[in-house]
């Protein structure tokens, strides 16, 4: 997927542990791990806003987009 989650980078910058962040935003460690490794279909806005609040950042700091022209033609499965 061209949208990547760069949560690890922000965690390292803020010197926070994934376990603590998961606890603060009400996710399980497994869910956060899946999110960090990009093994999820998507992220809810409320999860994104909680992450931004805890990590003191904006969505752009934890999400990256690799341009791919084929995205316009991709179909939802």
């Amino acid at each position: 997927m061209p949208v990547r989650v760069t949560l690890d980078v922000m965690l390292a910058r803020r010197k926070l542990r994934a376990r603590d962040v998961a606890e603060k935003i009400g996710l399980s460690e497994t869910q956060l791990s899946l999110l960090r490794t990009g093994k999820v279909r998507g992220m809810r806005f409320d999860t994104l806003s909680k992450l931004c609040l805890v990590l003191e950042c904006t969505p752009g700091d934890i999400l990256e987009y690799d341009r791919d022209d084929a995205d316009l033609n991709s179909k939802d499965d």
Partner: protein
Amino acid sequence: MPRPSVPFAALLTRFMALALGLSLFFANLGAPELLHLEGGSKVMMTPVYWVSLLAPAFYLWALWAASEAIVRMDRGDAFGPAVVCGLKNIGGCLMLGAFAAAVVQPSLIYLFGNGFSEMRGVRMDLDVENVTLALVGLVLILLARQGQKLQSKLDQFV
């Protein structure tokens, strides 16, 4: 005020299932003229009486399954495995009930009527009610499957 563990709709459905089941049982028992027999106790001895209870039994089972599904939905299960299973149960019971009413009952009653001496093909009673109930049951099963798929997709969102 604490919420009741079983929602009112589920209680009502269970009450309806029980009341309908009992009334069906005793109505047939108390209406021997329906089967051209004399004496209520004799009615219960006839196989026709028990065969005639087949379809209603499935419908009552569906009603009971509906009450279970209402309880699970009230717990916020959405389209979790328990609710999906409940919906499939309701759909399956409706389809079985309709099949029993349309095919099994007419055929068996005919066979009992002639003492199993003659059977030419399958007897069918394709009422609008039976076909509608069977299709509603099928739609419920298909809806449960679609809901299960949507739920599993939704679960992939964190």
